[in-house]
């Protein structure tokens, strides 16, 4: 008898996989185990719309009715504590045990922590409960410190400014968004935050942090000292690999999977922020992505491969997506498709109202990534087209990429 499919982690990737199992016609039991108390919800709004709202609401991915209709058994507020590969069973926090035919690890990532005692005035943002705790401190005229100039920190800075808080953002590197974002784009974002009244402190580290009943005190390595109602720490995230590691699965900056998203145990798959995988687009370079669309794509793909319903001879389907990411800050929309560091040179397409797209080309002229920024959705359509050009391995004429007279769609036909 089929003991069923078990998914650990009821986030974007795990939930998508559960639905995909049904979309592919799987009729056995599907169990989704989630540590959080809420129905599965989207994380991106937590640093954006939800944070800026008066009464933040979780944007639910699937409600009870849809889960029931699809025969998905969600066990929430329950942590999986161990995987017994020999018995093919998952142990749960309440002591019970659940057998699996195939297991998917979709455990996501967790905020990287600073080595200071953590009290209520030092916050990290990953969950809806984290967001609610932070939101209470964002008040007009009140000082907030954000540590880390990555996407989460910058989006939070924008939301906090919208609510009238006084924001200081501290970045240890020589500029914000040093990882993965071209300097020209980071410069636009940097200027916008300053114009909106965010105090940006660049190239300064945290020497010490402590809190008392009134405030959090931050001592910078430069000797500067800051006080704030709340310090929000956004210095990146690490893959949640504890279960996999304890079960003896291969780990390599995340749970290591192959192009089919199988771990070193063929009965166990991993998807989303928790896994590293070979990115076929770039010759199998091993990467780990923290991106929403990737979590969905990998959840869908893992489900297919758990069922052996792929199109290859062995019933697998390899990963062949192009990474894609977006961020919203104020009215600025940023989108990046592909990984910019694959490029060796850049050509720039200037669009209306200061919007622009950078096309990242490899030595051989192949388009490998595109990054764009502008008000609202200005860059979206050309980024969508760039994705198709990248997927096709097109070597576009640089002059045509620059010129607005050339519609990018015409390059696809070439």
């Amino acid at each position, binding site marked *: 008898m089929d003991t069923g499919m078990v998914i650990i982690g009821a986030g974007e990737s795990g939930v*998508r996989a559960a*639905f995909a199992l049904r979309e592919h016609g799987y009729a056995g039991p599907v169990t989704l185990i989630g540590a959080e108390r809420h129905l599965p919800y989207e994380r991106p709004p937590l640093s954006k719309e939800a944070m800026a709202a008066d009464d933040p609401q979780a944007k639910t991915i699937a409600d009870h009715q849809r889960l029931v209709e699809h025969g998905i058994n969600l066990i929430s507020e329950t942590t999986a504590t161990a995987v017994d590969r020999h018995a093919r069973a998952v142990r749960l926090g309440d002591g019970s045990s659940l057998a699996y035919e195939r297991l998917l690890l979709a455990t996501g990532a967790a905020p990287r922590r600073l080595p200071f005692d953590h009290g209520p005035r030092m916050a990290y943002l990953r969950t809806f409960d984290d967001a609610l705790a932070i939101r209470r401190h964002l008040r007009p005229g009140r000082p907030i410190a954000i540590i880390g100039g990555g996407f989460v920190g910058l989006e939070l800075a924008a939301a906090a400014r919208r609510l009238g808080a006084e924001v200081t953002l501290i970045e240890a590197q020589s500029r914000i968004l040093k990882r993965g974002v071209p300097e020209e784009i980071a410069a636009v974002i940097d200027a916008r935050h300053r114009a909106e009244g965010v105090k940006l402190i660049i190239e300064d580290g945290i020497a010490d942090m402590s809190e008392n009943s009134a405030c959090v005190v931050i001592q910078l390595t430069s000797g500067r000292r800051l006080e704030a109602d709340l310090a929000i720490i956004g210095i990146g995230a690490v893959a949640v690999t504890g279960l996999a590691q304890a079960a003896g699965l291969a780990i390599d900056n995340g749970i290591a999977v192959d192009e089919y998203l199988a771990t070193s145990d063929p009965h166990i798959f991993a998807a989303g922020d928790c896994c590293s995988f070979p990115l076929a687009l770039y010759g199998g370079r091993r990467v780990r992505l923290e991106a*929403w*669309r990737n979590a*969905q794509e990998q959840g*869908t793909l893992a489900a297919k491969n758990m069922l052996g319903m792929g199109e290859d001879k062995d019933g697998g389907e390899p990963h062949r997506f192009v990474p*894609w990411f*977006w961020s919203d800050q104020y009215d600025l929309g940023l989108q990046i498709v592909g990984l910019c560091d694959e490029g060796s040179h850049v050509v720039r397409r200037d669009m209306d109202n200061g919007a622009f797209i950078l096309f990242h080309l490899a030595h051989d002229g192949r388009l490998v990534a595109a990054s764009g920024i502008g008000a*609202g*959705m200005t860059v*979206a*359509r050309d980024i*969508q*087209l760039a994705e*198709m050009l990248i997927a096709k391995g097109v070597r576009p004429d640089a002059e045509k990429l620059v010129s607005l007279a050339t519609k990018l*769609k015409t390059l696809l036909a070439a």
Partner: protein
Amino acid sequence: MSNWIEACAADDIDEEDVIRFDHDGRTFAIYRSPDDEYFATDGVCTHEQVHLADGLVMDEIIECPKHNGRFDYRTGEAKGAPVCVNLRTYPVKVEAGKVLIAIG
């Protein structure tokens, strides 16, 4: 009962493209397919409040500019995550070089 409204001139829309049409507080998206047929749907994505006319038309698909949700603009069918709610569609006819849509 149909209420035919003039949305735009037929050649206001390029082939395999979309434009936005606002009428009476509502927003529509009007499409011209690669086969030179015209279609109309609600103008805003069913995932978030985003204008589909900023998105990309490829064959019979409109891809949302915000998170790449895809719809078949002929039927309004949502083609999968992140969109799971279909778009409403409206009858369209072309008369004397004008695109008319029936909004009920």
